């Protein structure tokens, strides 16, 4: 039976892009189905009834949700491509730990800092800086978080390599500066230079337009 792989995603979402990057990395062909998040399709609601979010991977009609879980599924299923996770159990635990750290402790704080003000913004910036310090230490001496090749943590941190800079510019903040985080900055360049990443980055102009729209909507309700 021919394999059917589909991705329900959103063009601007780093979570959605993680999955596309990983599939391209593995050399797996898939059909991409763009989702309108303001008007969620029956398809999305049917395949992710619990969270109603993107991304969702459909493999021969079976849905998998939550991007990091999808990445592990991709690695488990398409073993002929390059590995996303190392073979050694301790290295695997290490990768899972840092991938989760990015999602739980880094991204939310960066996001919060961009959309908040005053004391709340200061606190979020402080938390984000602490998280970035840990990641700066973690990448030291390595080309990628995964070592010589890209791995789970690199995909997880995709937001930092690209989206973060754009958001920061728009909110007048600074996160990943070369001065403060030289190793992370270098990693971001390397990561964005990979073909499976480069081909999957949302257009900057389009993103600025969307974020400005979001800002307008946010400030008009304040």
């Amino acid at each position, binding site marked *: 039976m021919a394999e059917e792989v589909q991705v329900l995603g959103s063009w601007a979402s780093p979570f959605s892009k993680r999955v596309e990057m990983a599939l391209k990395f593995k050399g797996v062909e898939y059909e991409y189905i763009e989702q309108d998040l303001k008007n969620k399709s029956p398809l999305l609601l049917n395949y992710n009834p*619990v969270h109603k979010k993107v991304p969702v991977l459909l*493999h021969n009609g*079976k849905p*998998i*949700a*939550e991007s990091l*879980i*999808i990445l*592990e*599924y991709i690695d*488990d*299923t398409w073993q002929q491509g390059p590995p996303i996770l190392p073979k050694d*159990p*301790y290295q*695997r*635990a290490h990768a*899972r*730990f840092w991938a*989760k*750290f990015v999602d739980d402790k880094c991204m939310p704080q960066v996001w919060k800092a961009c959309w908040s003000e005053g004391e709340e913004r200061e606190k979020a910036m402080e938390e984000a800086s602490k998280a970035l310090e*840990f990641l700066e230490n973690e990448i030291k001496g390595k080309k990628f978080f995964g070592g010589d090749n890209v791995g789970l943590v690199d995909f997880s941190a995709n937001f930092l390599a690209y989206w973060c800079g754009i958001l920061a510019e728009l909110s007048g903040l600074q996160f990943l500066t070369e001065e403060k985080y030289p190793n992370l900055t270098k990693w971001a360049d390397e990561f964005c230079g990979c073909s499976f990443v480069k081909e999957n980055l949302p257009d900057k102009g389009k993103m600025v337009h969307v974020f400005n729209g979001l800002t307008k909507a946010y400030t008009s309700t304040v």
Partner: protein
Amino acid sequence: MASDEVKLLGAWPSPYVLRARIALNIKRVNYEFLEEKFGTKSDLLLKSNPVHKKIPVLIHGENPIAESLIIVQYIDEFWASGPQILPSDPYNRAVARFWAAYIDDKWYPNARAILMADEGEAKKAALQGAIEGLNLLEDAFLKCSNGGKFFGGDKIGYLDIALGGFLGWIRVIERMGDVTLIGNCPNLLKWGENFAGDDSVKDVLPETEKLFEVAKFIVAKTKASAKH
């Protein structure tokens, strides 16, 4: 320390620590349990989990592993010859991981808020959320168990451990909050009994009465410090 020595930093009331202990028991791994004193963090804890400074931490030889679900997966993968904890099929693995993440990210914050939130809308919303969550898990149980006693089928698996860690606390929340949670889910209720009686669980599952005392203390402390 020998390269194969296993230590677990934890505390007996913690649902997360319990997960690690059950996984070690399933694999029949000998380990030293190092109990952290409530309210303090030992030097060993701070050294082996500098990022989060939390229990549990599994220390295997020189290698520290933190985050309970990551620890359980590590135990499953390192001691691969023992009974399997994660399903062997990649899709079923993804489903088990999905629900385990749901329990930690969505369900538990609601359950906790039943005790911690002030009376009124917040508490009502938390209870509603927790009940809805358990209904989803009741459904998931029917799909995953394939007629068996556990989410893992005939034997305890990853999702059993993920939810089972909270079993004692669910009972405590029901009692302290005077609410019904698992009581309204007949399959989960039966599952809970089977889980509690399993060989790898029964010696490490804390007594509900003792947990109840700890809960009273924690809730009072949390509410008092929130007021200042």
